[in-house]
C-alpha cells in the first residue's frame, strides 16, 4: 500500500486510541483515587460513571472561552496549542507491537521508527518546557508566573537524571532505535527469566528504572512533585488563567505525557511487547485466560445478583469478556497478544502513577530540588559508570 495512505491510517488509529485512553485514564484516576479514599467516585453518568468522560468533554467544549484582557495574546494562545501538539508528537516513535499483517498489508505497530528515536523523545520533552513557561508568563498573573517558574526549574533539573537513566540501558542494548531496543530484549535466561533490561546481563538496570520513574513523575508534574499546580499555594499554577478547551488542552497534555513516559518505560526497561515468561511455558495463553476468568466471574455474579439489575447487565459483560478471550486465543491473537502485554505493562505503570497520587503528600520545593541534584543525579552518574564498566568487561 502507498506509504502516505498507510501512515495516515496508522496515525488516525493511534490518535483515536490515544484520545480514548486519555479520556478514560482520567475516569480511572478519579475512580481509583475515590476507592483509595473510601469514596465511590463518578457514578451518576452511565453505569459506574463510565460515560463521565463524554460528559466532561461536552462540558469543556460548551464552556465560555474567556480571553483575559491583560494577557500577551499571541503567546497566551500559542502555549496550549504547543503543549498538546508536543504531547502527541512524542507518541509517534513508540513501538506498540511487532511486525504484523492485516488484510495482506505488512506493517509495524509503530508510526515511525527513527534511528535516533530516544533522542527525538528527549528533544520533544525538553521543548515541552516552553509550553508551560509561556503559558505562565503570557497569562500575566502572579500565580501563573510562579507556577511556570517552578515547573520549568523542576523540568530542567529532572531532565538530567532522566537522561542519565535512559542512557544506561542504551549501553546494554547498543542502539537508539526504539524498535531495536525492544528486539534486543527478546528471549529469556534459563528458559524462565525474561531478558528485559531491568534484568539483562551484564548489568540489570533496576536503579536506572527507579530513577526514570521518579524523574517521570517530576517531568509530568504529578504528585508528589506537583508543585507547579499546588492548589493550596498557587490556585492552579501555570494554567490558572485558562478556561474551556484551552484548559482542557493542558489537561490532555499532562495525561498524554503520562502515557508517553509509561510507554517509554515499558519499551526501555520492561521489554516492550514481549511476555514476562517464555511462550514455551504458555505465556500466549495468559491473555485469553485472564479474560475468560473475568467472564466466569461476571457470569457467577450475574447468576447470584447482589442487585436486581445485575441479573441483566453482568451476563452481557461476561459475553463481551468471553468474546475477547476467544479473539485472543484465535488467529487475531498473533496481533492482539503482544498488544495485550504492552498495554498491561503500560497500564500497570499508569496505575502506579495514580496509586502514588493517592498515597504520598506533596514535597516542599527545596526538598524537591535537593533530591534531584544531590541524590538522583549522582546516583544516575554512578549507575551509568557501573553499567559502562560492566559492558566493557563482560558485554557483547
Amino acid at each position, binding site marked *: 500500500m502507498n506509504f502516505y495512505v498507510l501512515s495516515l491510517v496508522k496515525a488516525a488509529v493511534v490518535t483515536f486510541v490515544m484520545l480514548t485512553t486519555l479520556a478514560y485514564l482520567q475516569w480511572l484516576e478519579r475512580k481509583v483515587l475515590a476507592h483509595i479514599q473510601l469514596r465511590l467516585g463518578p457514578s451518576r453518568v452511565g453505569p459506574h460513571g463510565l460515560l463521565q468522560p463524554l460528559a466532561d468533554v461536552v462540558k469543556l467544549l460548551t464552556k465560555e472561552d474567556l480571553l483575559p484582557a491583560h494577557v500577551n495574546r499571541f503567546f497566551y494562545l500559542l502555549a496550549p496549542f504547543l503543549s498538546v501538539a508536543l504531547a502527541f508528537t512524542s507518541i509517534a516513535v513508540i513501538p506498540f507491537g511487532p511486525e504484523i499483517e492485516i488484510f495482506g498489508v505488512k506493517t509495524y505497530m509503530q508510526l515511525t521508527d527513527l*534511528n*535516533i528515536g530516544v*533522542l527525538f523523545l528527549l*528533544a520533544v520533552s*525538553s521543548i515541552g*518546557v516552553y509550553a508551560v513557561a509561556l503559558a505562565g508568563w503570557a497569562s500575566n498573573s502572579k500565580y501563573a508566573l510562579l507556577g511556570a517558574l517552578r515547573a*520549568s*526549574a523542576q523540568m530542567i533539573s529532572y*531532565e538530567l537524571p532522566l537522561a542519565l537513566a535512559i542512557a544506561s540501558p542504551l549501553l546494554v542494548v547498543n542502539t537508539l532505535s526504539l524498535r531495536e531496543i525492544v528486539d534486543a530484549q527478546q528471549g529469556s535466561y534459563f528458559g524462565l527469566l525474561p531478558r528485559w533490561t531491568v534484568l539483562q546481563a551484564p548489568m540489570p538496570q533496576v536503579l536506572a528504572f527507579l530513577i526514570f520513574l521518579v524523574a517521570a513523575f517530576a517531568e509530568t508534574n504529578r504528585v508528589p512533585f506537583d508543585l507547579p499546580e499546588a492548589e493550596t499555594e498557587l490556585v492552579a499554577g501555570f494554567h490558572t488563567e485558562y478556561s474551556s478547551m484551552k484548559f482542557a488542552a493542558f489537561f490532555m497534555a499532562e495525561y498524554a505525557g503520562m502515557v508517553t513516559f509509561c510507554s517509554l518505560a515499558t519499551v526501555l526497561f520492561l521489554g516492550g511487547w514481549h511476555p514476562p515468561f517464555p511462550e514455551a511455558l504458555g505465556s500466549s495463553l495468559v491473555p485469553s485466560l485472564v479474560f475468560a476468568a473475568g467472564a466466569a466471574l461476571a457470569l457467577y455474579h450475574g447468576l447470584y445478583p447482589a442487585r436486581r439489575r445485575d441479573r441483566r447487565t453482568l451476563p452481557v459483560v461476561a459475553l463481551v469478556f468471553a468474546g475477547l478471550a476467544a479473539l485472543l486465543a484465535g488467529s487475531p491473537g498473533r496481533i492482539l497478544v503482544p498488544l495485550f502485554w504492552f498495554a498491561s505493562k503500560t497500564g500497570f505503570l499508569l496505575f502506579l502513577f495514580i496509586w502514588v497520587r493517592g498515597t504520598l503528600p506533596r514535597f516542599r520545593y527545596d526538598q524537591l530540588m535537593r533530591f534531584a541534584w544531590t541524590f538522583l543525579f549522582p546516583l544516575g552518574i554512578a549507575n551509568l559508570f557501573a553499567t559502562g564498566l560492566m559492558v566493557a568487561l563482560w558485554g557483547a
Partner: protein
Amino acid sequence: MDAFLFFLFAAIAVVCGINLVVQTHPISSALSLIGVMGALAVLYLLLGAEFIAAVQVVVYAGAIMVLFVFVIMLLNAGAEQPSNKSRLAHALGLPLLAALLGVLSYLIQRALPHSPRVIFGSFTKGTAREVGRSLFTEYLLPFEVISVLVLIAILGAVVLARKEID
C-alpha cells in the same frame, strides 16, 4: 522534495533571525532564536546528520534557550523603548547593513574553494554510532580538551557566584 524542504526551512531560519533583531520584547526575540535553532536542526537532518540535528534541539533549544527564557521571566524584563536619538543611524542603517552583507557574501565566495555540489542523501555518516566512533578515535584529544574547558567554565561560574565566607 529535498530542495523544497531546504528552501522552506532556510527561509524560516532567515525570517526568524530577522524577527529576532526586529522584536522589541526579549521573550519574542528569545523564541525567534529557538525558531532559528529548530530550522537549523531540520537543515542538518536534510544533510544526513541526524545525530547533530537531535542534539541541536536537545542542547540549544531544549537546555540553553530554556535558561535564557527562564532568566528573562525571572527578571521580568519589559519591552525595549527605541531611543530615536541618532537620525544618521536611522537613515543609513539599512543601506549600510545591505552593503556589509553584500561585501561579506562576495568575500566568502571569493575566498572559499569551489566545493562539489551538495546532493541530499549522499552523506550517511551522521548516525550516533559514526559520530561517537570518530569522537573517541580520531578527535579524542580535542574532545577531551573541550570537556576540560567546559569544566573550567563551570568552576569559574561557581567561584564567581559563591558567597564570600569570612
